[in-house]
């Protein structure tokens, strides 16, 4: 069970949150000029990284706000939590094999 520090409410149990996938995926600026491959990349392709991943969470059973979390997908350690629109935090480099 994770203890997630909501930037608005403070530390809460993981069961109060919902996961929103990878963060910082920008919608294409000129969607009508995209090739099928580029669309597929935007819609489906995600890094599935082993290490720190920037991801979105929503405090769905609390304040219902979206925010970003820098979480290690191997150890589940949460390195940083930041609000939508804030700058990406510096996160430690992970060199898992």
């Amino acid at each position, binding site marked *: 069970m994770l203890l997630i520090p909501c930037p608005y*409410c*403070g530390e*809460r149990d993981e*069961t*109060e949150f919902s996961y929103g996938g990878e963060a910082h995926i920008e919608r294409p600026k000129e969607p009508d000029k995209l090739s099928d491959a580029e669309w597929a990349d935007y819609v489906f392709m995600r890094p599935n990284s082993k290490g720190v991943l920037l991801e979105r969470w929503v405090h769905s059973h609390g304040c219902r706000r979206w925010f970003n979390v820098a979480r290690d997908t191997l150890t589940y350690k949460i390195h940083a939590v930041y609000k939508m629109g804030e700058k990406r935090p510096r996160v430690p480099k992970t060199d898992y094999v």
Partner: protein
Amino acid sequence: MADSFLRHSPLAHLGLAGRAGAFEAGTAIEAGVTMGERPYRGLVNLRGPAGDKAFADAVQKALGAALPVEPNTTTGKGDVAVFWLGPDEWWVVTPSDGPATADKLRAALAGQKAAVTDVSESRTCIHIRGAQARDLLAKGCPLDLHPRVFAAGQCAQSLCAKAMITLHQVANDDAEDGKDGGPAYDVYVLNSFAEYLWLWLEDAAREYGLRITSQ
């Protein structure tokens, strides 16, 4: 709002008033928990910019209570309580007059960027108090309810037995209005979850001894 003679609290069919005051059959132990429904409370959802002084001032003038800006806290004046729900969202809780409170707020905030919605009919309130009230809630709620962390005057939206709740601690352990020598809580739960949550709480409270109150 429904005409008052048509109003029907979500727990009315459980006949709690008829069981009020009596101990559960077969429990010889003293009641550690007292529970009752507080139906028809007035709930008004308020949204607006917390940092805007004009907004905060208008709300304070209309309600008499300052807008809580500290997360998970409440403010109050007389019968009116204001709960912090999010950085730009609050609840105004009154004993019964939701629509009147909403009208008052709407008039006070006319022309401002704010939203006032009467949500009184969406939820009912289960009042829990007693020496073991905290233990009872802790069985189903992931919040840290230790008095050092969560005390009277605080509120939080969370889960209890997987049902969405808004929890408000009304009194501390030693407070006089926590009549049974324990903390007192108000649990606001959606109407459609009210019966489920009541029955779950009633079952969970069995080991402590349960008294039902009609207040």
